[in-house]
């Protein structure tokens, strides 16, 4: 997700503000510490102009 965020030129704080969560939520999602809900994943995908599948994958 970090790659997708940097590709659109957003900081963690900017992305957090865009979807109405705290910066630490973005940080923990990017680091794999926190698994977001479907709603949050959809919001993230929309904000980053991509799909949920492109942002998150199941581990092989």
């Amino acid at each position: 997700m970090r790659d997708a965020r940097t590709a659109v030129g957003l900081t963690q704080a900017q992305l957090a503000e865009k979807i109405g969560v705290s910066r630490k939520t973005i940080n923990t999602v990017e680091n794999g510490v926190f698994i977001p809900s479907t709603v949050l994943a959809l919001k993230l995908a929309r904000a980053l102009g991509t799909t949920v599948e492109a942002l998150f994958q199941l581990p092989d």
Partner: protein
Amino acid sequence: MADDIEKLSRRRRVILALYGILFLGLQAVLFKKLDDPIELWRPIHYAYAASYLGWSGTLIYIFSTGGLLFRGRSPEARAALNDELTEANRVAGYKAGYWAVLIVAFVLFVLSQTYGVTAQEALRITFAVGVAMPACRFAGLERKQGA
């Protein structure tokens, strides 16, 4: 707004940790006063009882909602301060409280076989741990995640 949220989040975390630890630490003082028979209670006893209830209520309220600290903030800021991660941390706090209460109840039961633990003492210790533990666990998680 992001800076504001960071600041408020940090404030909540620090207040909960301090309140929780102080609440547990002050039990010894409160215990002595509140152990007197109720017929002998003077205004100071009622003040202690009121502060005990007030402290517990405030701690539970701040932990459960954070509302008291965020009064007057925009709905967006409040939503960000109570987002999914915060809710997940709250759930972790409740879980920690559940286990702490079970463990304390068991330890008190074992102790009561040897030492004279009154029902009042057991209830107060269990209640205090049940109130403080979730707040401290929540604060710990928020700190770890960089709040």
